[in-house]
């Protein structure tokens, strides 16, 4: 397990990403593009938390199957909901 210093670094990165999201919002631009960028940053934050705070990175790879499977199910639901709009 990494040192506390490393985790503080991760935390600082996450906070910076949060600020970046808010800043991105105020950039004038197409709503869709800005939204996609913000959601990509958010996904990056979520993955970072899962990888380091939930230390998936240091576990056996097979554990990641569980959350990934759940996310895939959500994506299936989302795609079908979008198709049936």
């Amino acid at each position, binding site marked *: 397990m990494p040192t506390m210093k490393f985790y503080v670094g991760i935390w600082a990165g996450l906070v910076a990403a949060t600020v970046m999201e808010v800043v991105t919002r105020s950039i004038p631009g197409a709503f869709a593009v800005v939204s996609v960028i913000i959601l990509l940053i958010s996904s990056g934050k979520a993955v970072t938390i899962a990888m380091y705070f939930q230390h998936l990175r240091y576990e056996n790879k097979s554990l990641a199957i569980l959350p990934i499977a*759940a996310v895939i*199910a959500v994506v*299936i*639901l989302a795609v*079908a*909901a979008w*198709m*049936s*709009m």
Partner: protein
Amino acid sequence: MKAIVFSIKEWLTTTHHKQIGILYIVTAIFFMAVAGMLGEMMRTQLAVPMNNFLTAFDYEQTVTLHGLLMILWVLTPLAAGIANYVVPLQIGAKDLAFPRMNATSYWTYLFSGVMMISTVFLPGGGPDTGWTLYAPLNTIQFTPQPGMTLAVLGLLLLSLSITMSSINFLTTIVKNRAKGVTWRRLPLFTWSIVFTMALALFAFPPLAAGLLLLSSDRFLGTVFFSSTQGGGILWDELFWFFGHPEVYIVVFPALGVIAEVFQTFAKKPLFSRNVFIIEFAAVAFLSMGVWMHHMFTTGVNYSVLQTFSFTTLAISVPFEGLVLALVLTLYKSHITLNTPMLYCLGAIFTVTLGGITGVLQAFPVLDYTFNGTYWIVGHFHYVMAGTTLFALLAGLYYWWPKITKRKYNEKFGVITFLVAFVGFNVLYFPYFFLIAMPRRIFTYTVASGFASANLVATIGAYVFGPAAAVAVLVLILSLRNPVLKEANPWEAQELEWTQNYQHLPGSPTAPSSTEVAVDPPAKKSAGQWYWCMTGSCKQPRPTLSGRKKLAFQRKQGSISGKSLMPEEKSGE
């Protein structure tokens, strides 16, 4: 009798998987009796045109409760009860991974069922929306009665219970297998429970999400389902994302039971076991992607129709493969035609007919007509009522000597089966001729031409219902029979019969048990699995090679002979 009736305190406080399994089975049978009575009431109402046995509102409540109770409080938990009893024995675990959570699952299940039944006694009546609870009929504007709200909360509590169960079973089966019980060797009923619980884990949270939105609509004044901007379709999506896997949650344990019973009474390993398991997995995976065929008539666009028509056709292939594997198991076998076997054969018939009529609905053009008519009702009663009920009864009959150490009366069992099977088909086959009759209508006119088929169905209901009750009664009466001498009366091969891990002499927690005397390890003559665990079995499958083979032989060595003795320290 003495073995079953204990002090109330013991039953209230138990965390033992066997006792909780029995509690589940008894409760599920109680709910089955209630829901079955509701079914008989509906058939009585529909026996003749313009009948006024029930009012329209009472009939809709009856329809709703019958559906909800049968699917969610009877078929799913009955399987969970059998699994509670059998799965730990089949994998050689002492108990489920989280015994207290298991007990909590049971109690939340029981109380949610009580809540559900009590809805009809509240002022204003219970839910009358059908078990699908379609929006916006389920909102407070159209169903203002508090009973409806209570039903939603009861469902929420049940999804909590089932989610806990699925977490528990999956963890148990992954983590608590005895040495030697590798995935390849896992008994087929346990395999079916793996897929059932995995599906439940994926299916129930979306339902819970929908129910949360619905209960906030009914309590807090949100407008999710009363809004005309996607409300109805949103419920459809969430409900059927749960609803279709739920069908397989109900059917999978049935197939697992059939596989076990066929192996035992056809005295033959399952036909192409590995393919069977792969097909199970394929059905489980595909079942997450077919739910929209329930929504073909809601005006979804053509690409959705095509996609989901295709996935629905695709899922029928591995499913048919499962049935074919079961049927082909009988080829060149030695079949003992006793009660569990007969129930399973009946279940194969109903699952094939129900499945094939289901495939027809994969074609949108046919579904436009079938959707919402008695054809659909016939189809899913063949799949769920027929297959699952017959197969789970087979399971009860099959494991009855394990659970109670007593044997039921074979002659009564066979006769009941025959009556129930005939009654079942007389009840549900006429539904396939009622393509024009909409579901959930409480009566019909003479001019509609529905009368004759409905009368036949009602006669069938009067045969099938009592027969099902007698089937349970035969089991209960057998409690007076003398205790069996042999531990393995069927000469079955599976681990719960041949081994009893919990009571192995020398295991740290189970010495002074009387069950050791009653239930000794299998005799060699019983014939063993090629992968059997007693150390006296024949050579393991020589299919591995090289490094793997070495590792395998080492492992094999560790489970052969006397080393069945548990190791002192295990993982954890």
